[in-house]
């Protein structure tokens, strides 16, 4: 009788457990995602996914390869390096705020700060560094912050993305929140991020060729021909939301940082190739 009660209580507890907690672990998600894309594009080597649409479309790849002779982001990277090395008014530089002086660390961002209980993106860390040194924060989506971020990314070229979800319920909640955002349909057009980049990569949507989710964050900040300049990942998030007629959220909002956390974790092990170019 007692045994039956124990079984019933255990069964009740299992049923009451929130689905989010009962779901897959981040690492299980990542492995399944990699397998999904391998099956969808069996001829594309795994590391090629970081090149997005250029890995899937031969014409686009040829255009891209010809652009690589004189990448349009080169000046911005040089400008970013100069800003990175120029001391603040107090004499310190950005290097003082980052591990290894900020060189070769792009692959570790974003990370979950277990003390502050929030996701820290590279751009957020750049602006917090400025504020800690008495400087005004930069605008989030383009301009100086994109140039500095591009320079820092360039020092990590080829390093495998290494995002961790620590054993902390808040970190897991941030990851799950990003995952939920990614798969939730929004906007009047009723599209999720996944509608395009998981379910339909390799297809055209009007004049745009859809890239796969796998490897997407590794090429940011990105120089888009459409923008004519560099932009950050959150600028792109806002653009995607706007395209489906969903009200974009502020760059570096908690939602977008969690989204970046989830999306970048999915690309763990793939090389950093940012900055890069896209149409």
């Amino acid at each position, binding site marked *: 009788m007692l045994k039956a009660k124990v079984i019933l209580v255990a069964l009740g507890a299992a049923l009451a457990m929130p*689905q989010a907690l009962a*779901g*897959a672990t981040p690492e*299980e*998600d990542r492995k*399944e*995602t990699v397998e*999904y894309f391998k099956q969808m594009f069996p001829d594309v080597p795994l590391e090629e996914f970081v090149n997005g649409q250029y890995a899937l479309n031969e014409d686009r790849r040829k255009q891209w390869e010809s652009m690589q002779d004189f990448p349009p982001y080169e000046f911005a990277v040089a400008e970013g390096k100069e800003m990175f090395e120029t001391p603040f008014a107090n004499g310190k530089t950005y290097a003082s705020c980052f591990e290894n002086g900020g060189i070769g660390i792009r692959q570790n961002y974003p990370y979950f700060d277990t003390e502050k209980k929030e996701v820290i993106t590279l751009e957020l860390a750049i602006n917090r560094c400025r504020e800690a040194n008495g400087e005004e924060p930069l605008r989030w989506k383009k301009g100086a912050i994109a140039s500095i971020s591009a320079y820092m990314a360039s020092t990590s070229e080829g390093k495998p993305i290494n995002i961790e979800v620590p054993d902390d319920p808040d970190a897991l909640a941030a990851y799950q929140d990003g*995952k*939920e*955002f*990614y*798969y*939730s*349909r*929004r*906007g*009047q057009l*009723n599209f*999720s991020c*996944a*509608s395009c980049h*998981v*379910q339909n990569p390799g297809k055209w949507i009007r004049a745009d060729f859809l890239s796969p989710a796998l490897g997407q964050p590794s090429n940011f900040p990105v120089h888009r021909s459409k923008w004519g300049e560099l932009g950050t990942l959150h600028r792109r998030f806002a653009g995607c939301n*706007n395209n489906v*007629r*969903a*009200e974009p*959220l502020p760059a570096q909002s908690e*939602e977008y940082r969690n989204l970046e956390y989830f999306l970048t974790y999915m690309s763990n092990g793939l090389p950093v190739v940012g900055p890069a170019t896209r149409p």
Partner: protein
Amino acid sequence: MNKPLLTIGISLALSVPLAAQAGAKEDFNEVYAKAQSTHQDAGNFQWTTTTDRMKAAKTSAESGDYDKAASMARQALKLAQESVAQRKQQQEAWRNAAIGN
């Protein structure tokens, strides 16, 4: 000619458009407030089209065209209600599309 009757008649005739405008203004205010609060309820599922209609409604109201303003506000309310429905529906539906669930 009956002067008092004529005066009352003219007064009534002149007050009709004013009364109609007052009704349209109240109608607009009511629908706009409802659209605004429903739009807020959508949280991070707000639609840009709702925002556009709300702005158009406000602009029409500021120029005194309350009929058009109320019409725009009604459109905004309908869109906002759809976005709230989407938010509620996606609370669970997202899992059906997710890899790893």
